């Protein structure tokens, strides 16, 4: 026993700061945000106490009760009761409670106490409690609960010192001294505890109430939400441009500088110039836009505004047959559908969960941003609309909106198809507002940079080089007149595919680019960069792809490709996660099938209609 590290589990109500505490204790960087249901898995880490003692720490999804109603809550219940497959019950449970919200959280503390296992109560957010004038008699609380109580501030460095010290001194022999009568009414006990140990401040108008009066106002609240979304899309375009231009210029310069020593017309020069710089460089220029989008997402996540937005839009989701709980997973899908689909674990009804998983890929993920902005910048004029809006930003907004509306429509159809009469519960907690911590936001952005660079250096680089080979070999026969790529493998595949895609306005270059784009959406941009670099005579590099396609494609083609990207399931990883989370290939086939069908129909309509007007 002494050689084995003590196994400790963090449990508590949703959004009480378990994961923030976990990060502080283990030095890890799990995702935290200000809404219920961020953590949907069990996560493990190690704690090193000052004495050199080590602990094995387990972070669990938050739950209001062991009477679990959703997959994430079941994980917590099973781990605490020692029923989780392949894992014994934890040696010690650290029950985390939000000190500003003890009325709700103490109930669960008592439920945990009834397990009869060693428990420590960590009163988190003590700083906020003090600010609100809440006075807690920790001694008395500890005595009445029959368990040790420590105070923590998980968002502050050193805020868990008391907990670490307690763990350091902890002896496994300590028997649980919890004195609770299992038959008693748990709510009555909570009230009694509160009355004896906690002093609430006199009622006053809290800042949150003032903000909520505006943010949740039927008219003004919706106006604020719309303005906020608009601001984000405007910012993606106008703030990013100067940085994008300099990245484009930098890539062009680097491409020129690295290849000037190589003999003109050599295969290596072509690989570096047309393959790597034209392909990867094009994707790289979109990093600033992705970061600006994430800056907004991170700030909104931390602030506690997101559940308010869910509150405002719930009626629409209800009409479409989605549970209100679907809002957060769908919103995460704007970053990437993969965490979005994972977040559906907080949805209790399995059919609701499946519907949400199937529509999540319709939310515009950040990987689509390079494709959208490349086309918008090339084809949509930078014109002011009503003096304040930029037409490019409006088009981007429309594309995002098209994704949302179609997700609602698809959910509605699915509900009709299965003649669903079940109830869709909302039951969502609205957290207190919080000022985002700049350090956390910066760290979140840095994480995004790393993820993006890893993709560029990994899958995008691999596919781009592969595509370069397919587009360069076999070489043209002697006496050929057209560009070499026409005779290559990729050129031929593109020309075959062209028959399928001609009705929706794609030329063969786009058709070729769509194939590697299946693996990851951004690859389509790098692939276009490579294909065009090889079909042209000049050295086309990053910054030139936009003007080049603006010159060669019709507006109808560009719009059709945009429509394609709203729907097409161009992402293997998403399909793999659907498979994992639903444990069925059938659902993968349904998702991919309906998305491709929608994409083709939408592009066909867009192309044919746009052709009539242009």
């Amino acid at each position, binding site marked *: 026993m002494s050689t084995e590290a003590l196994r400790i589990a963090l449990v508590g109500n949703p959004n009480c700061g378990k994961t923030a505490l976990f990060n502080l204790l283990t030095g890890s960087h799990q995702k935290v945000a200000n809404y219920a249901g961020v953590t949907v898995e069990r996560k493990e880490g190690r704690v090193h106490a000052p004495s050199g003692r080590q602990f094995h720490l387990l972070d669990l999804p938050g739950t*209001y*009760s062991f*009477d679990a*109603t959703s997959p994430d809550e079941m994980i917590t219940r099973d781990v605490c009761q020692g029923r989780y497959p392949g894992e014994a019950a934890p040696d010690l449970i650290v029950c985390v409670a939000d000190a*500003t*919200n003890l*009325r*709700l959280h103490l*109930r669960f503390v008592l439920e945990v106490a009834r397990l009869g296992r060693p428990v420590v109560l960590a009163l988190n957010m003590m700083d906020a409690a003090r600010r609100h004038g809440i006075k807690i008699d920790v001694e008395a609380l500890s005595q009445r609960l029959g368990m040790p109580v420590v105070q923590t501030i998980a968002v502050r460095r050193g805020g868990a010192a008391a907990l670490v010290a307690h763990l350091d001194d902890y002896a496994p022999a300590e028997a649980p001294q919890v004195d609770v009568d299992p038959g008693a009414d748990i*709510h009555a006990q909570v009230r009694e505890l509160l009355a004896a140990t906690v002093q609430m401040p006199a*009622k006053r108008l809290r800042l949150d*109430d003032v903000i*909520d*009066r505006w943010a*949740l*106002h*039927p*008219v003004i*609240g*919706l106006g604020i939400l719309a303005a906020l979304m608009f601001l984000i899309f405007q910012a993606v375009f106008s703030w990013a441009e100067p940085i994008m231009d300099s990245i484009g210029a930098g890539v062009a310069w680097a491409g020129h500088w690295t290849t000037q020593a190589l003999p003109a017309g050599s295969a290596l020069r072509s690989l570096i110039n047309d393959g790597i710089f034209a392909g990867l460089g094009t994707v790289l220029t979109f990093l600033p836009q992705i970061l600006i989008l994430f800056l907004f997402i991170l700030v909104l996540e931390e602030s506690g505004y997101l*559940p308010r937005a*869910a*509150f*405002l839009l*719930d*009626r*629409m989701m*209800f009409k479409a047959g989605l549970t*209100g709980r679907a809002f957060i997973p769908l919103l995460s899908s704007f970053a990437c559908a993969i965490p979005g689909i994972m977040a559906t674990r907080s949805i*209790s009804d399995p059919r609701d969960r499946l519907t949400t998983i199937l529509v999540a890929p319709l939310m515009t993920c950040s990987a689509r941003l390079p494709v959208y902005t490349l086309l918008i910048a090339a084809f949509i004029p930078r014109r002011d609309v009503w003096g304040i809006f930029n037409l490019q930003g409006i088009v981007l907004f429309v594309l995002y909106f098209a994704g949302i509306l179609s997700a609602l429509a698809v959910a509605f159809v699915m509900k009709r198809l299965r003649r669903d009469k079940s*109830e*869709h*519960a*909302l*039951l*969502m*907690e*609205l957290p207190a507002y919080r000022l985002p911590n700049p350090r956390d936001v910066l760290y979140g952005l840095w994480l995004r940079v790393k993820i993006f660079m890893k993709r560029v250096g990994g899958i995008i680089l691999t596919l781009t080089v592969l595509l370069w080979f397919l587009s360069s070999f076999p070489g043209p026969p002697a006496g050929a007149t057209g560009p070499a790529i026409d005779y290559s493998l990729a050129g031929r595949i593109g020309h075959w595919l062209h028959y399928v895609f001609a009705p929706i306005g794609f030329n063969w270059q786009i058709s070729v680019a769509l194939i590697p784009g299946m693996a990851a959406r951004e690859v389509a941009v790098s692939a276009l960069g490579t294909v065009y670099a090889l079909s042209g005579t000049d050295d086309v590099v990053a910054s030139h792809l936009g003007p080049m396609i603006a010159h060669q494609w019709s507006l109808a083609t560009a719009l059709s490709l945009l429509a394609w990207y709203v729907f097409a399931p161009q992402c293997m990883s998403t399909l793999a996660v659907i498979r994992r989370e639903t444990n069925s290939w059938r659902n993968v086939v349904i998702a991919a099938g309906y998305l491709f069908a929608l994409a083709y129909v939408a592009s066909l309509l867009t192309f044919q209609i746009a052709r009539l007007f242009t």
Partner: protein
Amino acid sequence: MVQQVQDAHPEDAIARRLRDLGFVPGETVRLVARGPFGGDPLLVQVGFTRFALRRNEAQRVSVEQEAAA
């Protein structure tokens, strides 16, 4: 003031969860806001926590008016 939470049907998980969240007889609840479309959902404060409830969930909770404080 909450009078009671009724089960809409046997084994009503939503009613059970409502009780777990603190909607129990004798507790004071306050309607904070209504949703913009058709007054749905409702934002209800119980203790220090605010919950968004759709109307059909809120219907399970029968309340009695208290004198305005």
